[in-house]
């Protein structure tokens, strides 16, 4: 049977797998995890079904951001090897459907969050979606090499939203969790952007390695890892967590700084020789998981 080219978006409704792919499920796990940690570390317990719904809404909000990001960046995605096979650049779906899906999912997640938990959490969820779509995707990302620095705030919202969903108010600890992710984002993304630099350059996205070069990026990675480590230690230094967290955060952050120092001393400009960058990128994901896991464990041990 001859193969049929099924890439005409007008001819067919999108496959459900492509609709799911719009939500970027593979990057959603970190958002869900940090949101869950914000909820679990809060000093109150809410009914499990409300906690589940809060996390579901955070996941749906993140999915909406992914869909709106892919809707806006379809032309850029087509120019990068890493993203060219996504449903929109590959022509398996039309842009209008992606826009409708993203906007619909945004409203659904915000309203459900408000009904199930409280409207402050819903407002924070709305703020994070608006920040990601308008401030990061549309404004900062195509214009400045500092896009990740300010745009990182969008990814830092989930633990704050999780906490507020449980307690109904903002306090010091969730703001510190926000700061940890905010300061963690630049070294994490810059490590990645060093070894996929050519992709960003081809798409004309002014990521730091493209605009300022590899040496300046490595310096920035190292310097950002220092305040990030300080933020990670802050819950313990301010008496908001115990020694289990303090000791673990110190060791985990020290390893992060050592790996960032190795990146700093690597002179290579070839992706094939960027072992330290790849190691730091992989470790940075583990680091965030570990820091938040230990924080929750410490909080639960103290109860």
């Amino acid at each position: 049977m001859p193969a049929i080219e099924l890439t005409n978006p007008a001819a067919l409704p999108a496959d459900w797998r492509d609709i799911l792919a719009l939500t970027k499920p593979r990057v959603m796990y970190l958002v869900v995890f940090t949101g869950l940690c914000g909820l679990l570390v809060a000093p109150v317990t809410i009914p499990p079904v409300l906690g589940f719904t809060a996390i579901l809404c955070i996941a749906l909000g993140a999915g909406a951001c992914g869909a709106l990001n892919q809707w806006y960046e379809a032309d850029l995605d087509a120019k990068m090897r890493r993203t060219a096979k996504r449903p929109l650049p590959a022509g398996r779906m039309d842009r209008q459907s992606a826009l409708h899906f993203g906007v619909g999912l945004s409203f659904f997640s915000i309203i459900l969050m408000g009904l199930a938990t409280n409207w402050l959490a819903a407002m924070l969820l709305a703020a994070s979606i608006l920040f990601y779509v308008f401030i990061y995707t549309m404004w900062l990302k195509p214009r400045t090499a500092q896009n990740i620095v300010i745009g990182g705030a969008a990814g830092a919202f989930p633990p704050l939203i999780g906490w507020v969903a449980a307690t109904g108010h903002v306090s010091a600890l969730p703001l510190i969790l926000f700061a940890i992710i905010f300061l963690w984002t630049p070294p994490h993304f810059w490590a990645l952007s060093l070894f996929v630099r050519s992709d960003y350059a081809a798409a004309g996205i002014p990521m730091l390695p493209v605009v300022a070069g590899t040496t300046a990026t490595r310096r920035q990675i190292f310097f950002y890892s220092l305040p990030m480590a300080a933020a990670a230690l802050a819950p313990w230094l301010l008496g908001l967590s115990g020694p289990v967290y303090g000791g673990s955060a110190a060791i985990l952050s020290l390893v992060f700084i050592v790996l960032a120092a190795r990146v700093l001393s690597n002179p290579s400009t070839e992706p094939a020789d960027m072992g330290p960058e790849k190691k730091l990128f992989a470790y940075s994901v583990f680091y965030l998981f570990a820091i938040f896991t230990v924080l929750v464990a410490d909080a639960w041990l103290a109860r």
Partner: protein
Amino acid sequence: MSPRHDPVIEERLEEERLRRQRDRARILALLLGAFVVLMFFITIAKTGMNW
């Protein structure tokens, strides 16, 4: 004859369209069912909290 008007291709496109519509309808039905159940339990939980 252009590929778009080849009867074999037309038939396969129609089959594919129906398959996708069926899959999407099933998934939507499941999601709506799950949403109703979720709303029921949210209502029970919030009533219990006297909110």
